[in-house]
């Protein structure tokens, strides 16, 4: 297993061609029992394992991944990070995540290519400028960076947008968060996996959980495709399959699984230096370090577990792209793919205990799982180790709908995507 990455072993390997680098994380056989089992080897599951080992001294942990590390949503998202949230608990949580991103590469000794290139959310009406001013003020009052730009300032920063008189949605301004940006998503998975493995966590790939074993109202372990594994702490972190896993423990959740598509064009020279989001429709675009335009839009709109997108949404996203950025009409699409995400009524996640003792839930991330990865792992680890929510994830409870404590960031009520 590769211990430290530094300039010296880089040079040593340069002079030893034909010799592969040691594996970044160990590939152990599953043991018969662990102090804690994390179901799901995605970004959130691996981050949780890392923080459990680092912050809470738990070393006897397994992360069970049904496929290979990086095969799920951690390798399918559009890599954006931001903390431009306005509602109660969200603001502090996502800003905490942003702060963890800032030191992540050093912490993991793995270059996650965190790029604070800034995010511009474009306003397309005077009313939207007012709404963005309110959002920006809320952010600044919470110590988050935000600035409101007028049309002329946006024209200087993003000269390639459609500013013509014929523009279907004229640009009135933008809210800019300079610390927002992108992170190389594969590196996040690999970095957390390697760091957790070095702290003694067993990362077990190709190990699908088929049942959650309970004794009364307590969890005692899981049945997997590689045998039965016992533990009195089992933590779910499986994104799109959250309902599927919860059903194994007899739970029904406020979640529907939906497909979100993402797209990338052929690589071109550097042009888009920010993350650009649009106020007229759910659309966002950034340019990867390799040069491709990475962009996406809304979910397809019906529940599905297939990771295949439908053409009508592709058409809609392309229309958004060419309306906002006319140059996109001359770009060629290289790939598109889909990921399954667990949509909640209010668009906010769950990081909480469940009615079954020892069973924990992390899910319901909707569109926003990737940017939350470090804070999600940090607070979920706290919840698992202490059997008690961290201050930052108290608001992400399962019973918030019963109590009327929804975190409705869109501000238009529950199930926004069904309206």
């Amino acid at each position: 297993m590769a211990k430290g990455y530094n300039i010296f072993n880089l040079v040593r390997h340069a002079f030893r061609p034909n010799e592969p680098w040691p594996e970044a994380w160990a590939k152990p056989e599953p043991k018969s029992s662990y102090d804690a089992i994390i179901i799901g080897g995605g970004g959130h599951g691996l981050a949780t394992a890392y923080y459990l080992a680092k912050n809470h001294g738990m070393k006897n942990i397994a992360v069970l991944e049904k496929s290979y590390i990086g095969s799920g949503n951690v390798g399918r998202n559009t890599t954006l990070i931001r903390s431009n949230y306005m509602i109660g608990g969200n603001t502090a949580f996502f800003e905490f995540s942003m702060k963890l991103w800032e030191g992540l590469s050093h912490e993991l000794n793995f270059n996650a290519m965190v790029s604070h290139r800034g995010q511009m959310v474009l306003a397309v009406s005077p009313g939207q400028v007012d709404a963005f001013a309110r959002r920006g003020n809320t952010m600044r009052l919470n110590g988050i960076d935000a600035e409101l730009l007028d049309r002329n300032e946006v024209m200087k920063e993003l000269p390639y947008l459609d500013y013509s008189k014929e523009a279907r949605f004229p640009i009135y301004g933008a809210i800019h968060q300079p610390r927002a940006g992108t992170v190389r998503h594969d590196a996040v998975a690999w970095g957390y996996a390697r760091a957790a493995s070095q702290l003694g966590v067993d990362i077990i790939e190709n190990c699908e959980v088929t049942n959650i074993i309970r004794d009364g109202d307590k969890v005692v372990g899981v049945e997997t495709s590689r045998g039965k594994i016992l533990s009195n702490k089992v933590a779910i972190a499986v994104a799109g399959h959250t309902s599927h896993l919860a059903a194994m423990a007899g739970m029904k959740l406020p979640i529907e699984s939906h497909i979100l598509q993402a797209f990338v064009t052929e690589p071109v020279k550097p042009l888009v230096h920010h993350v650009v989001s649009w106020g007229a429709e759910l659309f966002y675009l950034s340019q990867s370090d390799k040069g491709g335009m990475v962009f996406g839009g809304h979910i397809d709109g019906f529940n599905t577990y297939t990771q295949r997108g439908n053409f009508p949404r592709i058409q809609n996203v392309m229309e958004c792209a060419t309306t906002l950025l006319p140059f996109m009409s001359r770009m060629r699409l290289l790939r598109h793919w889909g990921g399954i995400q667990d949509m909640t009524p209010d668009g906010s996640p769950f990081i909480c205990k469940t009615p079954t003792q020892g069973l924990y839930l992390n899910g319901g991330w909707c569109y926003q799982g990737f940017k939350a990865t470090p804070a999600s792992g940090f607070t979920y680890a706290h919840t698992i180790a202490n059997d008690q929510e961290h201050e930052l994830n108290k608001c992400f409870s399962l019973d918030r709908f019963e109590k009327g404590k929804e975190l409705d960031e869109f501000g238009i009520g529950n199930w926004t995507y069904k309206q």
Partner: protein
Amino acid sequence: MRIPCPHCGERDVAEFRYGGDATKARPAHGTGDLQAWHDYHFVFDNPKGPHTEYWQHTLGCRQWFKLNRNTATNVIVPSPLEGEGGANAPDEGVVAIGLASANPSSVLRKKAQSTFSLKGRRGEKKL
């Protein structure tokens, strides 16, 4: 994905609007049990597999109907037509969202159905 509308035949998914899980029963009008309303509004089976759901043919006949679809594959499986006691039989939930059984148009619709058969293209569709 292509969806077989029981009235218009198979059309592209772009013509339809998804209406959610059709197996849930709306609590009776005036029910004061908040837990029942909570479960009705917020909690879903969300199965990975067979799912009965509402769709509306918004860019066609605008009728609501039930569809059996496997959420793991998007394969749509045949369901009996309305009146044959199958998934497309109208129930209170459908009435509430616009398929008025007392409406004269429903008579026309039933008549249309008697001459319209989906047989022959109702096998499993790989989408």
